[in-house]
């Protein structure tokens, strides 16, 4: 029943969202209703969000949170600025790009301590021991996506000219990788990495992952944002939300809670079999609770500054944004 | 009447029953009609009485119950017909008058019907009266025994109309024409037999009246004309 009501609230917010432009509602007095826009659909990468809601951690803080799934056309920054969502999940490059264009947003938590973006490859066909080995390879890239920025930085740092590699425009369909037309294919290690890996394993093929973090490119991934206005006007509300969310992630990442977390995710992500969700969760734990569970939600200032530097270097932004001013880690 | 003595008919309909789909009452019930072979005849009656429907049944274009027999091909033409727009009038008429005899007839008809000056035009560029005449000409070039003309001269001026009717009588003495018109004077003067179609409730539904059958050499007197007109109007 609870799921029904939460789904209904989510649906209602999704339906009424477009009409609420001129009535941005921060009326969070009694039983605060909060809209929380995710970056993508509910899967292992949103484990903490789902657990915080399902286990009543938001409710314990007096918050009624509608978790709104994201998607390619959803932009949490835009929705937060327009007042359609109170909180949202955005990747670091989105945040920095938004700040460069004056979006009045702040970062209140960092979900991934290690960027899950990897490139999958077949070790029998491709040897990648360092960034230098990218030379001469056919590399999949999402033009306009943060993997393009990361790849270009990698190439630049290893003095590999664009003419020395062959970039292949990727989409949701992995066929070119299966057909071995592409050597390296970008994916999220903890999500698609498990699913694609399973298929390759079933086909008897060996596979490995190339992690740009290990090649020296630190690029922050998903983080939780809210509006500067909400933080200024209702800091205690932001604090309560962030606290509940962090507890949700801590619970979700706790090995003893893994089975329950997997079941909760499976309720929304029916397409992924439960064993694979368990595997995804184990990998997510490595990326989120890194180096230890105490680091869950920690905002890594150095990594953010490096991300900003990369984006400046790659001309993704035309001026520095002084990212430190937009980071608001909230102590529990 | 013995079968041998019975006058030869261009079209015979016996025991015709017809209703529009969904209509409560039949339009025609147990109706019989004999259109005489040869001559210029009329089908006359008020608007909406079913003249066009009867004409289409006579031409075999509308299915009905009853017995229908014809002496030779029957064609049906109506006043709102159009010619394909991509050909000129001349081109179209030459196409549909393939036989050499028809070509000769065509030249005569173009002259007598007064359309020889508009042969290079397209159908859409003609006046309504010219369109009526062009349409009628192409039917006259076909192989027919009976031609049903459903208001085929509706937009033609009176003088030209008379000239056309007289031409038809002269050139096609052995063919039958069934002319549908609302002009009582015209049908009284030029038609040999006037088939008067009345409401379905009236018995009989069809009354045949002798017309004056005027030709170029045999004009009719005003008195006879008035008497025939009165007879038609009273019978209606």
């Amino acid at each position, binding site marked *: 029943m609870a799921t029904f009501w939460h789904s209904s609230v989510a649906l209602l917010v999704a339906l009424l969202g477009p009409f609420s432009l001129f009535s941005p509602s921060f009326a969070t007095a009694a039983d605060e209703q909060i809209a929380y826009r995710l970056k993508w659909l509910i899967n292992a990468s949103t484990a903490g969000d789902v657990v915080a809601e399902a286990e009543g951690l938001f409710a314990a803080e007096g918050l009624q949170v509608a978790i709104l799934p994201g998607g390619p056309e959803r932009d949490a920054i835009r929705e937060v*600025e327009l007042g359609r969502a109170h909180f949202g999940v955005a990747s670091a490059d989105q945040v920095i*790009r938004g700040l460069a*264009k004056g*979006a009045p947003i702040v970062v209140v938590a960092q979900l991934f301590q290690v960027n899950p973006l990897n490139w999958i490859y077949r070790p029998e066909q491709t040897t990648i021991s360092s960034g230098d080995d990218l030379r001469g390879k056919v590399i999949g890239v999402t033009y306009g996506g943060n993997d393009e920025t990361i790849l270009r930085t990698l190439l630049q740092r290893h003095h590999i000219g664009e003419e020395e590699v062959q970039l292949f425009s990727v989409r949701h*369909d992995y066929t070119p990788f299966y057909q071995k037309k592409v050597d390296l294919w970008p994916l999220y290690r903890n999500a698609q990495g498990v699913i694609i890996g399973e298929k390759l394993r079933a086909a008897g093929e060996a596979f490995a992952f190339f992690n740009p973090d290990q090649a020296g490119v630190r690029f922050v991934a998903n983080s939780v944002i809210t509006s500067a206005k909400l933080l200024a006007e209702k800091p205690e509300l932001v604090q309560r939300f962030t606290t509940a969310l962090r507890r949700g992630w801590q619970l979700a990442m706790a090995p003893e809670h893994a089975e329950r977390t997997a079941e909760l995710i499976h309720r929304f992500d029916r397409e992924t079999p439960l064993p694979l969700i368990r595997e995804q969760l184990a990998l997510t734990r490595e990326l989120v609770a890194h180096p230890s569970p105490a680091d869950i939600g920690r905002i890594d200032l150095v990594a953010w500054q490096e991300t900003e530097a990369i984006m400046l270097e790659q001309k993704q932004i035309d001026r520095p944004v002084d990212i430190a001013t937009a980071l608001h880690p909230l102590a529990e | 009447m013995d079968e041998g003595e019975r006058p030869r008919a261009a079209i015979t309909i016996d025991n015709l029953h017809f209703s529009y789909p969904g209509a409560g009452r039949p339009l025609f019930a147990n109706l019989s009609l004999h259109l005489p072979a040869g001559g210029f005849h009329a089908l006359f009656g008020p608007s909406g009485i079913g003249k066009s429907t009867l004409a289409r049944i006579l031409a075999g274009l509308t299915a009905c119950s009853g017995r229908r027999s014809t002496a030779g091909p029957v064609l049906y*033409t109506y006043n709102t*017909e159009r010619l394909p*727009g991509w050909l000129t009038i001349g081109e179209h008429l030459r196409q549909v008058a393939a036989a050499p005899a028809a070509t000769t007839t065509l030249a005569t008809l173009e002259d007598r019907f007064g359309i020889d000056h508009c042969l290079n035009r*397209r159908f*859409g560029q003609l006046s309504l009266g010219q369109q009526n005449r062009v349409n009628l000409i192409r039917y006259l070039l076909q192989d027919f025994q009976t031609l049903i003309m459903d208001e085929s001269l509706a937009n033609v001026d009176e003088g030209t109309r008379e000239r056309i009717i007289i031409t038809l009588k002269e050139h096609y003495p052995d063919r039958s024409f069934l002319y549908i018109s609302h002009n009582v004077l015209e049908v009284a003067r030029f038609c040999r037999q006037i088939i008067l179609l009345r409401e379905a409730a009236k018995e009989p539904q069809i009354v045949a009246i002798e017309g004056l059958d005027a030709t170029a050499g045999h004009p009719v007197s005003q008195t006879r004309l008035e008497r025939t007109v009165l007879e038609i109007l009273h019978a209606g």
Partner: protein
Amino acid sequence: MLANRLLQFLLLYFLAIGGLLAMKYLLGLSDYVIPGVAAMATAFTEMAAIYLGDLLDSLRVALLGHALSLLLAAGVGILASRSTALGSLIRAAAYTVQTYPIVAVAPIIFILLGDGLASRLLITILVCYFPLLLTTISVLTEPVADIEHFFISTGRNRWSLQVAIRLYENMGKLITVVAGSATLAMVGTIVAEFVAADAGIGFSIRKALYQSDLAHILVALFLVGIWTSIYLGVLETAGALIEKKWRNPAGGG
């Protein structure tokens, strides 16, 4: 006609831009949500030439796809109008194909045909041929009784003549649908590029969307609008000329 189309588009485009800017300044929104005039101008100077190249690439596919759609719709439409059984089967197939969202079908197409021109063309055709097909079927199955009556009565009614009469008599309708489907051809091409291809203006829009760059998207939409208006205007002008020559020739000669 062409000038009208361009003027109408420019009016609508700048009205929309005006609306966006009014919203931006009234609500105090950042350049991230709605770019300001300066950001739009910068995006235009930086991207117009690049996007024009992309757009011409898309336009090439759209034109080719549109032409093939016309041929396909004419061929299938004629087949569908000839026989009742085959016709209803083709109509059913056409409706079914149309109900599939193209974004769902696109990956299958790309698996089968690769990510070259063929896939883009096929998706363009799938998007724009349906109205053409329906119009062709409706035109070819609807008798023009006042013209056909003579040919039927005199035993001259050939199938080719019947097709000619029906096409000729519905020329205005056909020209309107052909011109209208030009817009759909453009939409189809952009959708194909958006979903999967790695060239064309749809691909550029997708890249700009990834970066939430509305200013770049507005530049792309401006160019798409201008060129679609030109294409539409040219087709309408050509249609009007054809109609004038064939349907209403001046004078009697």
